[in-house]
């Protein structure tokens, strides 16, 4: 690698990655990062993956020795990445997740490692806010590292700060986008990340300052309130199919997934997976809750009356092309070709 010829000013940035009450999907998503050489991308960014459950050679006792060396201060722990919810149950014992081979609950390992980490990163909505594991009756008493839903606290408590003085960095998403994780770690390793770059829910602002709606390919249908009525329809999914893209913080439609994907491009609604509490919408995910025919989840920064007035106006002005295509799975009416030159 060309980069190995450069001298390093700083020692490698050690990352220890743990998985608890989640599905491993954020790790699997991370490996889909858009690079021809994933491990090269890490080392080029000075990131040393000290131990990762899917990638490292060390197993069993060897892995435990690495964790213990971090706790004892023999290995500097620059970033602790935690994926999955913190399982506090049953009755606060943490026994729903014992770290294999140690007899000790994972929540205790996380507490001990977070105490020595320069940065603590929650990878995915489970680790950030509790996520899908906290749904329903929350049988495992799952929570996030520093949040329980939208309430600050969680496993580590509201007062927790990592070695550099930052609260937990919440790279929320279910799963989280590979480049949200990679770019966060790269910024940390390069010492280019500080508190001003986190939003009110602890998320990196480089992706959380956007809305899923931005760049949505269905925007023309949205403009005219030409709505999809069933899966595979091309229309806007806000009115009938539960889409929350106009309210949800993430850049999914401008920073695409797996090449050219996003949820709305895949034909299904944004379920707000980067937001605390997404796992319990209080209604069926696939259906937009309405009062008197008007969706209750309107864009957050728009007066409701204006939205209703504009929607009714734009509906009455909807071109036939847009109206008919909205309820079809392919374009039935194509944009007209003007025979005169465009003006």
């Amino acid at each position, binding site marked *: 690698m060309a980069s190995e010829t450069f001298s390093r000013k700083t020692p490698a940035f050690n990352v220890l990655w743990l998985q608890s009450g989640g599905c491993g999907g954020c790790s699997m998503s991370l*490996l889909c990062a858009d690079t021809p050489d994933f491990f090269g991308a890490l080392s080029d960014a000075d990131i040393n993956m000290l131990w990762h*459950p*899917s990638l490292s050679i060390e197993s*069993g006792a060897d892995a435990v020795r690495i964790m213990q060396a971090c706790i004892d201060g023999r290995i500097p722990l620059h970033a602790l990445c935690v994926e999955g919810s913190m399982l506090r149950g*049953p009755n606060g014992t943490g026994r729903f997740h014992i770290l*294999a081979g140690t007899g000790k609950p994972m929540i205790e390992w996380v507490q001990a490692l977070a105490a020595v980490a320069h940065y603590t990163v929650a990878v995915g909505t489970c680790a950030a806010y509790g996520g899908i594991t906290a749904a329903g009756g929350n049988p*495992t008493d799952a929570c996030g590292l520093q949040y329980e839903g939208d309430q600050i606290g969680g496993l580590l408590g509201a007062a927790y700060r990592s070695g550099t003085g930052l609260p937990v960095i919440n790279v929320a998403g279910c799963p989280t986008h590979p480049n949200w994780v990679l770019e966060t770690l790269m910024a940390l390793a390069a010492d280019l990340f500080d508190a001003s770059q986190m939003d009110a829910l602890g998320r990196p602002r480089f992706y959380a300052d956007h809305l899923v709606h931005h760049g949505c390919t269905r925007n023309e249908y949205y403009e005219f309130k030409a709505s999809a009525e069933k899966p595979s329809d091309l229309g806007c999914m806000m009115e009938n199919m539960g889409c929350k893209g106009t309210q949800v913080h993430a850049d999914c439609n401008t920073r695409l997934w797996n090449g050219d994907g*996003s949820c709305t491009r*895949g034909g299904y609604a944004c379920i707000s997976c980067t937001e605390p509490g997404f796992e319990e919408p209080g209604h069926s995910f696939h259906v937009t809750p309405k009062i008197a025919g008007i969706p209750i989840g309107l864009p957050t920064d728009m007066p409701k009356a204006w939205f209703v007035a504009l929607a009714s106006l734009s509906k009455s002005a909807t071109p036939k092309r847009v109206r008919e295509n909205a309820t079809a799975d392919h374009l039935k009416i194509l944009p007209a070709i003007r025979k005169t030159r465009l003006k």
Partner: protein
Amino acid sequence: MARLIVGPFNRVEGDLEVRLEVVDGQVQSAHINSPMYRGFEQILLKKPAMDALIYVPRICGICSVSQSVASARALADAMGVTPPPNGARVTNLMLATENMADHLTHFYLFFMPDFARPVYAQQPWHAAVQDRFTAMQGRHARLALAARQRLFTLLGTLGGKWPHTQSIQPTGSSRAVEAAERVRLLARVREFRAFLEQTLFAAPLEQISAIDSEAALRQWYATAAPDSGDFRLFLTLAWQLELDRMGPGPGRYMSNGSYPSPDGGLTFARGIWDQVSDKVQALDTDSISEDATHAWLSDAGGARHPADGLTVPDIDKPDAYTWNKAPRLDGRVIETGALARQLVDAHPLIRDAAMRCGGTVYTRVLARLLELARVVPAMEEWIKNLRTDEPYFVAHALPDDAVGMGLTEAARGSLGHWIAIRKGKISNYQIIAPTSWNFSPRDAQGVPGALEAALVGAAVLPGEDTPVSVQHIVRSFDPCMVCTVH
């Protein structure tokens, strides 16, 4: 007798602890513990039935499409409908993409790095293995990861993203594929084929899938240097280390069958193959039961059929040692996975190998690699057969009260979902994942699960606290623990 507790057992999906009783350098008995519980079967209760499609993919981040497919089929069964041909083809494509990526990840990132360990430093193949497979550094591991990343762009197009797509519906796909997109999808599959043919097999896929006996395999092997292609390198070390004697399976193999075609047929057959009789029997799903005697879960009512299954934690239960229940077929232990699929589907090479040495580390990995060669050409056909003038989805209502069963094959083996719906809400939901079968604990009769039995006899070298032979055997099953304990 010495006792070893091995964990965290990594390069498997999820959490695993292995307890070994060791006598004279050999494992005498093994207990498999899945030490994490999340409770999806509890979480799903009282949810609107269609919301299962949001929750269940999140059981697992490595086989989330498989979970979606099983759930969509359970809901389709409850509706009494099947998806239109385009919907079925897209579902096959998505499932195959995930399964092929899983086989690749398993081989390059999970299984092969162990042979780069210093314990094998004296072996003639060690330098080549180290160069290609060392964890986080191996040249071919890095190429494989790049090939995987490109392969998953199929799911960006077909499913919006991976993992946790929501495009898979009981009656088709929410993402219709346009005519021009077909050629792009085809190009991506061919990129993946090129990686397999250049780096993994050093041969055309059709040549590999046509190998019809172990004799033919040895003949093919001899046509090039022993490290020409990663498949040949695997065979070199597998035969030399006698991986064909390591980790014997129970002799009974189950497959739900996979990749249905629009005419109702299956690309891989459904059934049970028995090594003693060398015959395939029909799969009777009524004879499936789950026994929770040794799980930290209520075993009220004894072993239960999943349609009537129960998931209630009981953490202080005596004699329990895992969160996994013990699934049984007709009361007996079975193994599932790529090996089982190819045995049931009667692939001649895999049948020949299994008749000689049974289910072992060698045959499990062999079957997985063979599937890469068999499925990728099928993916090309499914793409070519997409009809852009036909629907991908049909509208159909879900009844308020119904039951349904959804079966599929994940990369790791047979996956089943059983749903009961009352007044539109989920009144029971039970999941039996491949690793539930393979990593099952003992049942009420004290019979160990497939892996527990396979570990008996494994070598423990002096000074080993995480025996390398145990690692090979465990990883040969490619376990998915997060699915197991959901």
